[in-house]
């Protein structure tokens, strides 16, 4: 791989040991993928996870003096102060989150602790070359915004944040962005929950090909697109999709396919989505909590919840996970009050797959997110899968 003199100086340690480690990782990835050279990135997002491996690598870079040239927004761990004040938070868990926070702060990251930066905090424009990890974020910036990111790992994105560079390969190149499989959606997609189901179902059917959707309405909501990408890239490795007439690289079916014939075509019906839900959901019945916000809920979703619950009360614990920015807006608008008066909690900076949820172990909840249900299995949480509105009703009744 060809390196500029600045790349080479960084690799050799002229910019400090931390930058050298980051550059070594990117050069290794570039050589593995036969990239001709590195290119600049204008934005980065790191899927901070607060797991041991994540913390180890962030501390290793920070201890070696690395500082971000393109400061990344970061995914949530959990809100230590919030859980300390309300639950019996494990001392060790609190200490580990504190160390993760400290490491990313030393790296100069933007401590947004939010998994939907593409909606409010870190939005690229079409054609920008970026390094975005996080399963819902990579497809959104590629597909909806038309920016260019590979399916980064948290660590490769962090290395790009530190060096400001990424190898030129994969989805940064025109020829790899074209759609390959046509997905014809027949039937009505009622709300954003159906896009959770659609994403999961399609990922299982098409493997790692780039799908081109037809039959999705032009006024599809940002929340629906967020859910679609999250599930496509969780159930499968699918960091890019097209929707004819909606996404910027798909004005027509032919354009989305890059002028080539599709290698396959699949149909999706309402029945397929219903059976996908039945396959993954716990059976109907009593629930002990509701978990919404994987990915983090938007202000529009939170407003709808607040309007639904006016004067009513939840029978079980009700959690909405969202960004600090959305929570603050909701507070100013009085929405936070409404949710709290109903006995619900709106929690910022927090992911469902974190050790702060120890009190939910062995419990059965309701969620709209297949991703949430999938990743929390190892925390012994189980879920009935319903739309956001049905989750709200279920939490009021105590039964889904």
């Amino acid at each position, binding site marked *: 791989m060809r390196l500029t003199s600045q790349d080479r100086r960084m690799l050799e340690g002229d910019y400090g040991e931390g930058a050298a480690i980051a550059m*070594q*990782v990117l050069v*290794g*990835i570039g*050589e*593995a*993928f036969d990239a001709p050279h590195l290119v600049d990135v204008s934005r980065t997002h790191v*899927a901070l*996870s607060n*797991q*041991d*491996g*994540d913390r*180890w*690598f962030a501390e290793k870079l920070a201890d070696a003096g690395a500082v971000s040239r393109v400061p990344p927004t970061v995914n949530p761990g959990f809100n230590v102060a919030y859980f300390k004040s309300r639950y019996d938070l494990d001392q060790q868990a609190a200490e580990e989150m504190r160390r993760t926070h400290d490491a990313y702060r030393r790296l100069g990251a933007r401590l947004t602790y939010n998994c939907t930066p593409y909606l409010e905090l870190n939005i690229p424009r079409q054609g920008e070359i970026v390094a975005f*990890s*996080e*399963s819902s974020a*990579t497809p959104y910036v590629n597909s909806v915004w038309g920016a260019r990111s*590979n*399916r*980064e*790992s*948290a*660590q*490769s*994105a962090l*290395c790009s944040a530190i060096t400001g560079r990424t190898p030129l390969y*994969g989805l940064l190149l025109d020829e790899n962005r074209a759609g390959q499989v046509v997905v014809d959606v027949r039937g009505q997609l009622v709300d954003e929950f159906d896009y959770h189901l659609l994403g999961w179902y399609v990922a299982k059917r098409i493997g790692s090909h780039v799908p081109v959707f037809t039959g999705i309405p032009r006024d599809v909501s940002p929340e629906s697109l967020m859910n679609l990408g999250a599930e496509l890239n*969780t159930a499968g*490795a699918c960091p890019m999709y097209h929707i004819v007439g909606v996404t910027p690289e798909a004005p027509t079916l032919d354009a989305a396919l890059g002028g080539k014939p599709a290698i396959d075509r699949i149909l999706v019906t309402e029945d397929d989505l219903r059976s996908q839900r039945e396959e993954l959901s716990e059976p109907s019945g009593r629930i002990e909590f509701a978990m919404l916000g994987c990915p983090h809920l938007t202000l529009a979703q939170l407003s709808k919840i607040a309007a639904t619950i006016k004067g009513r009360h939840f029978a079980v614990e009700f959690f909405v996970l969202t960004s600090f920015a959305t929570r603050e807006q909701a507070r100013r608008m009085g929405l936070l009050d409404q949710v709290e008066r109903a006995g619900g909690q709106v929690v910022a900076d927090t992911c469902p797959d974190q050790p702060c949820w120890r009190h939910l172990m062995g419990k059965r909840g309701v969620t709209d997110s297949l991703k949430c249900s999938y*990743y929390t299995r190892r925390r012994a949480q189980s879920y009935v899968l319903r739309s956001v509105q049905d989750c709200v009703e279920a939490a009021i009744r105590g039964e889904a």
Partner: protein
Amino acid sequence: MARQEIQLRCRRVVHGRASGELLVSGDDICFYLVNPDDGVVIDKGHDLEGHSVAGKVLVFPNGKGSSVVQLDGLYQLGAKGNLPAAMVVGTLDTVLVACAVILEIPTVTGVDLAAFNDVEDGMVVTVDADRGLIVSEG
């Protein structure tokens, strides 16, 4: 019975040279679903379920899993000294490559994995990523 021998050309992904018993999988691997204490695969229905990857030359088609869990899985294996000695991978993905680079696991690609179909697990091979060679020992 004639002793099996293999000598294959491959392409370097992460430099280094390591030897170990071959362990061949036809399924993609998520290292989060491997027990760090003994390296045993616990992914339900995986063709290596119940087998340990520790110290092995691990041959598999591709990685799988989100952008964060793969590193944590491999990191935990490393902390317990149970990483594979080397990896021979069919198709590369960014997440797996980044992990292999960061944890310095000798890794190669560019081999037709069908070459391993008739090879018995347990055969000892050396992977020399820098010279682009996989050779049986003895």
